[in-house]
């Protein structure tokens, strides 16, 4: 019963928290450049509007195009159940980071196929770039996780949170911080944030993610956007709870869950402020500079693993 309750609760937190997070980011960015900006709950209104509209589907497309939004949301919901969000024992307690990353890749796989399905050059361009970035980010993720797993001697996400919690001087451990930096850069690439991709523009040619989903409209677009927001939410939650596991309870009681929710909200707010400030301060990189950025994050991950070996 507990497991079912926690599953529903965690899915709700992510499904409802994700649009709010995206809205907060937009508001923060608007304030930072001196605009008033929309309210943080604007994404909910956008989603409601999109769900009410009739989708337009290209005649060229196949069932892949229509199925992809559902596969995407499905993959993100499973990811939501696998991540340690409110407690260190997520509903899919066996899940490790490999499963989580593969679920994200499953989403990318289908979205890239949907981008090709309409037969327009924009979609193909977006797909090709998206899989390039996703493929190059993969080694960094693995090595950063390796560094964490080495210290916790488990690849189980909940296990990592529990083992790292009891470790003092976490924030001054070089291996830990290097892994955090590497993972942060990968997060920027995987969720399509600046400097890799600009989520705020709709110029098809400069885009990665937006070019790929150009053909989507109506409820299909709503699902795709919602899934993208959930991916960002899960990634930021991982950054918050894996690297700074303070205030993540291990038991499933209402007060503990409330504490977990508050701690998570606080950490996510800090990360959102960092992200908004970063996105305001830097410009988008040229596409063929992105691999250099990812190579840099890979180097950080390698250093992090070496540091674990040297300090053992």
């Amino acid at each position, binding site marked *: 019963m507990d497991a079912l309750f926690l599953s529903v609760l965690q899915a709700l937190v992510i499904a409802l928290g994700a649009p709010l997070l995206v809205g907060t980011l937009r508001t923060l960015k608007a304030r930072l450049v001196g605009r008033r900006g929309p309210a943080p709950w604007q994404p909910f209104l956008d989603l409601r509007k999109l*769900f009410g509209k*009739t*989708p*337009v*589907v*290209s*005649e*060229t497309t*196949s069932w*892949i195009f229509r199925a992809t939004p*559902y596969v995407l*949301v*499905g993959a*993100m*919901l*499973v990811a939501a159940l696998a991540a340690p969000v409110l407690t260190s024992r997520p509903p*899919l307690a*066996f*899940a*490790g980071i*490999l*499963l989580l990353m*593969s*679920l994200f*890749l*499953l989403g*990318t*796989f289908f979205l*890239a*196929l949907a981008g*090709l*399905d*309409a*037969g*327009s*050059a924009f979609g*193909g*361009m977006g*797909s*090709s770039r998206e*899989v*390039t970035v*996703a*493929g*190059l980010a*993969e*080694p960094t993720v*693995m090595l950063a996780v390796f560094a964490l797993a*080495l210290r916790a*001697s*488990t*690849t*189980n996400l909940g*296990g990592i949170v529990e083992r790292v919690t009891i470790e003092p001087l976490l924030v001054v451990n070089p291996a830990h911080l290097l892994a955090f930096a590497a993972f942060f850069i990968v997060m920027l690439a995987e969720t399509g944030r600046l400097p890799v991709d600009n989520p705020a523009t709709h110029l098809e040619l400069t885009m990665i993610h937006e070019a790929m989903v150009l053909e989507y409209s*109506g*409820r299909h677009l709503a*699902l795709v956007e919602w899934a993208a927001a959930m991916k960002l939410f899960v990634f930021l939650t991982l950054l918050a709870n894996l690297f700074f596991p303070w205030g993540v309870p291990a038991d499933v009681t209402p007060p503990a869950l409330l504490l977990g929710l508050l701690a998570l909200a606080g950490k996510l707010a800090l990360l959102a402020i960092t992200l908004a400030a970063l996105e305001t301060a830097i410009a988008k990189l040229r596409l*063929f500079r992105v691999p250099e950025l990812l190579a840099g994050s890979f180097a950080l991950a390698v250093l992090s693993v070496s540091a*674990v070996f040297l300090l*053992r």
Partner: protein
Amino acid sequence: MSALVYALTALLGAAAAAAGVAGMLGTPWVLRIDWLVPLGGMALEMDPLAGLFVALVGAAAVPVSVYAIGYAGRERRGCLAYAVFVAAMLVVPLAANVMTFALAWELMSLASYVLVLDGARAGREPAASAHAGWVYAVMTHAGLACLLAGMLLLTAWTGSARFADWAAAPTLSAGARSLVWALLALGFAAKAGGVPLHVWLPLAHPAAPSHVSALMSGVMIKLGVYGLLRASFVWLAPALPWWGATLLLVGAVSAVTGVLYAIVDRDLKRLLAFSSIENVGIVLVGTGAAVAFAAAALPALALLALAAALYHVVNHAAFKSLLFMAAGGVLHGTGTRDMEALGGLIKRQPWTAACFLAGAVASAGLPPLNGFVSEWLTFQALLQNIRLPQPSMNLAFALAIAGLALAAGLAVAAFVKAFGITFLALPRSDAAAGAHEAPVPMRVAMVATAAACAGLALGASAIVPALAAVAATLVPAPAPITVGAWLTLNISGDFASLSMPAVALALAGGILLPVLLLVVARARPRVRRYETWGCGRLLQTARMEYTATAFADPFTRVFDFFYRPAARLDVDAHPESRFFVRRIRYENPTRFIVDEWLYRPLGRVLRAAAQRAAVVQSGSPNLYLAYVLVALLLLLLVA
């Protein structure tokens, strides 16, 4: 007639699969027929490892033979060679002495060589395919030469040609074992397709008929892995650390090289052949990790890595034969395997497309299919390398982990391209526009194999312990694998865990939930069909689509140090004005640095040496007789 041969081969496969499973579960038997073969007689021996590979060959041969009835049922050519090919592959793992092994191995190579040439004659580019056959013959025989050299050395040193005596003989010195291992590893890795001995694979596999390609990529190259396991863990035990490090690095390089070439290739079947190199790389990394752990006296971890490698062997056999069968369906329906001439096939070939999609998801290592589970297990074995004391070994492992992760990420790109360009959007040629769906036997075989891919993933909690039991016959240790609630696989205590049924169930629920919610909310199911957005252009044609080459372009730029692209652009303008272009010709051939840096110089050296050596070939019989006399005298003197 040929349909009958294929049907009989399917029955043979089914029987072999049953016998193999029985052998795996522990009913060993020995069969000796001394008069059949000279030099030791024919000897077959069943043990769990041989049983696994016999079961694998047999189980793969069943759907592939059914497929062949639809694919080549009216063609008489090649059916006999196919039956011989399957039979020889069944004998290789059972062989118990040098002579039996060498004969079965050579029969397997020759039968597949005949089949490659056969595909070549039927193909569109006979010259290129004849070249494929030639390279295949050279590489496979160079490999055989290495194998025989290694085996004969071992025979001389232990005084027996029976494999069982090698394992029982007193341990040789480390140098002797290393020499033999190097020779055997060269021969077996050449068959498995490890870089840099892979050059025959992307030539021969696409040239063969598709059902043969399915078996060559699915199971034949695995027999190289079988030989490596036998040599490293049985014949030459105890293993040395440098064997493990070598296999780890060769595996990581193969994985990355294979997938990088797969991304840029525009021939559908060659793309799959390169992907086989990638997957063999993953298997070799698992094997190398097992050898390294075994050499460092960590048998439990060696067992885990070995189980992971064997699991990937089985999984790759399933999804790669599925993919080759589906690619054969495309070839059958359109007559081409050039992806730039395909497109839109999902509407004309819905079954083939769905089966290819299943294979692509499995091959890209994505949940919930089988490729994901064995890659996951391989990573879990690799990640535990912290228990090895030597930092240099840790470094080799870290490189292998990064290489496998890069390969896994890039495999997604390669299969998005393979499926997306071939099956989605508008057809790029008349052949693709007029494609027809595969006939019933082909569809049955493909659907059954796709179901096997799902079954191999969902049944992980039963399959992995069974494979660990096979691995335990090579490295005796208690398996660090337990099965918990919800069929959860627990690895090394609480190091890692995974429950595929739960993942599949959650995924199904997660996909159905939004559908249900939309139904409950009575969202209008109506969808408006309209043309693709094109910035106001009048009509959409296939020329506006992204091509396979364009899709791979970011990779050719990012990895230009690897591809060394040599694009050529010829613009033929009108003599009056350069603004009136009559013809544009653009070429960007893929270059293979291994060929250019290793095999071409090697070929030149060999040719020069052969020309020097030709001096002794005067053509005069008298001189040749004199050579025989001198050789005889020398031998008598030495003896």
